[in-house]
């Protein structure tokens, strides 16, 4: 039985979907926001070092479900494996209201001008589909600002000479410096670098009625109990709901986009919280499921005009899957560095994002979030025995004496790093699952190696007595920063959506999340997702000719 028709159905209540819901609902469109996960509260999240979205030792706390949502991972040698959300390689992002923004670290970066013009800046990179975005920084600037002020960003990038020009400073000051910050800041200066306070979607003073960060130990991967960390779940989604024009339905897994005979979308078919198949008719369908799930939904939407999936006429849906190749270094100091002040990450440099000799891009470098004891195990250098007295002694003596400096290396997109549908495996609802395959471009790893060296140099200058680097391998990237699978472009032959995020060829289906990123910057992508969602929603509302709930 079909449900009441609405103007827009949005699939996914994460970073993109939350903003779109709010923008459309406040513009007077009737909206249904479908989310496959739940609306969690901090009560669902014990400060559990093993069961959270970061360590995932005992499962991914905020979904997706360990049993119901498998994926197939194909490694470089062609071996297939069925993977669960908490397995490495699954490229998990939280499945809940707020999506990744519910439990992330909340760095709120604007990309730089060159990040939108990678091809023009660096030319073609062999073997990569590196390209420019069809829009530039100037097209997003106003929306970056809107996201920063409407949702609330703290920090201070006035000391960053490399940043793209901004009209307004950030609305909130940074947190007082931690011990790591106090050691790293002068060291960077001595090296002639330009350290500054990381912009974060985090209240450092009361803002929008929510309180300031209490600087607890459990940040990335956990629910914020003071609601100081900002996500779509505590900003735009409540605003959307308060308009009365938006209905949020949780526990709803979208099966496919429903199309009429001319392949125009008529709504979506989804399984509700009680696993009943429902049909939600809508004038517009906006896909905001994250790079892997959005691509999967388009591929699962088959029609005689689109036998290989909606928007996939040129075989670009699911291609160019990328994330960030985190690389950096650990430094061991001969004095205590740990001060138990969250979130940990506080200071960054943008000196190596671009202009690195012979390299097409780079990364921002910043100190890492607080390491919980179990997380520290992943930081123990390779020369320390894996077990026995030596390991224990190292953990005991080094736990409070390390700093980690790391950065998200911008990746060279690969046509063959992709999301497909698995021909055999289906999920709990019988929907074909995502099949991930491909690897990382060698140049990405070259850049990562360079960045790790710079991180190491910074730590050494800060007084680290021992350092060890972390450089990613060749395997497929994705993870929480997954992007690129429904590229935005002007040419329908080499992209999936146009510059307003509308699918080429179908005029009422949009993809508004990181899937549309042609390249993913050398920064955490969330603020760009939010800004682009504000921008595309505005364009959508401007062209909207249908009836509104209220004008």
């Amino acid at each position, binding site marked *: 039985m079909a449900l009441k028709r609405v103007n827009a159905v949005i699939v996914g209540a994460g970073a993109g979907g939350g903003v779109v819901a709010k923008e459309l609902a406040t513009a007077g469109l009737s909206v249904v926001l479908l989310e496959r996960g739940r609306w*969690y*509260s*901090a*009560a*669902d999240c*014990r*400060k*559990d070092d093993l069961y959270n979205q970061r360590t995932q030792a005992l499962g991914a706390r905020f979904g997706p479900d360990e049993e119901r949502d498998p994926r197939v991972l194909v490694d470089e040698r062609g071996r297939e494996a069925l993977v669960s959300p908490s397995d490495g390689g699954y490229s998990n992002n939280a499945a809940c209201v707020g999506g990744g923004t519910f439990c992330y670290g909340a760095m709120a970066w604007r990309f730089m001008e060159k990040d939108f013009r990678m091809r023009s800046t660096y030319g073609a990179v062999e073997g990569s589909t590196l390209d420019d975005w069809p829009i530039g920084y100037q097209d997003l600037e106003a929306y970056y600002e809107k996201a920063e002020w409407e949702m609330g960003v703290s920090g201070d990038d006035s000391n960053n000479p490399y940043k793209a020009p901004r009209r307004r400073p950030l609305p909130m000051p940074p947190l*007082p410096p931690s011990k790591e910050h106090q050691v790293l800041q002068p060291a960077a200066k001595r090296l002639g670098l330009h350290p500054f306070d990381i912009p974060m979607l985090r209240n450092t003073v*009361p803002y929008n*009625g*929510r*309180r300031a960060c*209490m*600087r607890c130990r459990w940040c990335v991967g956990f*629910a914020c*109990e*003071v*609601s100081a960390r900002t996500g779509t779940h505590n900003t735009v989604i*409540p605003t959307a709901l308060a308009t009365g024009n938006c209905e949020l339905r949780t526990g709803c897994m979208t099966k496919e986009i429903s199309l009429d005979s001319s392949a125009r979308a008529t709504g979506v078919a989804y399984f509700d919280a009680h696993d009943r198949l429902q049909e939600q008719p809508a004038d517009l369908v906006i896909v905001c499921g994250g790079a892997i799930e959005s691509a999967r939904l388009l591929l699962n939407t088959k029609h005689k005009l689109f036998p290989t999936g909606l928007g996939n006429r040129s075989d670009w849906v699911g291609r160019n899957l990328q994330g960030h190749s985190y690389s950096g270094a650990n430094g061991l100091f001969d004095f205590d560095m740990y001060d138990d*002040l969250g979130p940990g990450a506080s200071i960054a440099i943008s000196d190596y994002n671009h202009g690195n000799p012979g390299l097409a891009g780079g990364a921002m470098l910043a100190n890492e979030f607080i390491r919980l004891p179990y997380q520290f195990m992943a930081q123990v250098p390779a020369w320390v025995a894996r077990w026995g007295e030596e390991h224990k002694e190292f953990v005991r003596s080094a736990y409070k004496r390390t700093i980690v400096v790391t950065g998200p290396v911008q990746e060279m997109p690969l046509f063959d790093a992709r999301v497909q549908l698995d021909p055999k495996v289906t999920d709990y609802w019988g929907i074909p699952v995502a099949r991930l395959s491909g690897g990382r471009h060698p140049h990405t790893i070259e850049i990562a190696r360079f960045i790790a060296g710079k991180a190491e140099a910074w730590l050494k200058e800060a007084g680290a007595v021992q350092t060890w680097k972390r450089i990613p391998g060749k395997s497929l990237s994705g993870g929480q920063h997954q992007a690129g699978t429904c590229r935005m472009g002007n040419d329908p032959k080499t992209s999936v959506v146009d510059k307003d995020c509308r699918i080429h060829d179908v005029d009422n289906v949009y993809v508004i999340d990181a899937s549309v990123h042609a390249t993913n910057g050398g920064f955490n992508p969330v603020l760009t997702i939010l800004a682009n969602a504000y921008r595309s929603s505005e364009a959508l509302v401007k062209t909207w000719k249908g009836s509104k709930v209220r004008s």
Partner: protein
Amino acid sequence: MKKIVLTAGLLIAACLLMTPGATLYFELGDGTRCTTCHEMQPLYDTWHSSSHRNIACGKCHGDAFTVDVAFHMNNAHRAYSHLRGDLPEQIGFANKYVLEIDQQCRSCHREEYAKWESGPHSAGFARIFLDKKHNTANMLMDDCLRCHGMYYEGGIADLVQPVSRTGPWRLAQPELANMPSMPCATCHQVHRQGEPMQKSGVEGSRPGPTQEVARPSLALFDRRTQLYVPVADLPMPAMKEGERAVKMSKDQRQALCYQCHAPIAAMQVGSGDDRTGLGVHEGISCLACHDQHGEKTRASCATCHPKMSNCGLDVEKMDTTFVSADSKHNVHWVKCADCHTKGVPKKRQETNQ
């Protein structure tokens, strides 16, 4: 026909009696039978070696004769979970039992209960969460439940609606209005290892003048991990006034107070909910003035400032928050110089500092 009715009747009766019957079986074992479900072992162990070892399980947890369908249904559900192999990692009690357990405490610890009931720590959910002035100024959040309503299973949005600053606010379950937000089990772990304390007055049992005693049950219930942390394991913060380290009493019981009456991250005295003593009262334990259960301080001044003291001052009449909440001089932080603005007289310095 008769036979069918009879059989059906017997079956129904059997079903009805099944869970209470099983409960009875467990009770008859003096607790040991509870541990046939091995997830009960740690609870049994701690209870068995605690000062409450002589109080039967059923006294607090209900028994076969408990008249409450939900109680027996819950037990049946537990047995079913157990059979399915769905073992709980932790066993605790639900919020709805808070009142009952408090009543059990009351049946023996009457004086403590009466003090608690008359003090601020017995405030109910309605008093805490429906405060218009508070809710208008500050958005409600999950962290409120860390100190108020730590046993509540759910988030703030399940408890109070709406979670906004405009209100009007109401409790989603109005029956929780008088549910104490800080029940006995906030600070006391009933199942706690430790010898029963001797009654004071018994020869040789009084602690010496420098000793502080802590009840073996003293422990913080940490909502975030659902664990009890014994008072001896709780951290004592290193408080600061600017850069200066503040002198702290060694009374470890204060660590319990600090969990909620906590400073913000910079550990400055007076920040957040902190009430660490400064000035004339620096270095004094919270419990030197605050009565343990009622938190009252009315009678405490005279302990150190008797009417017949050498200084001849009646501190209870001085301009401090002890006299009036509107006073500028908070008793926790009042310094000599606050009143002696032109310098503290030498004589006073000697006697007071």
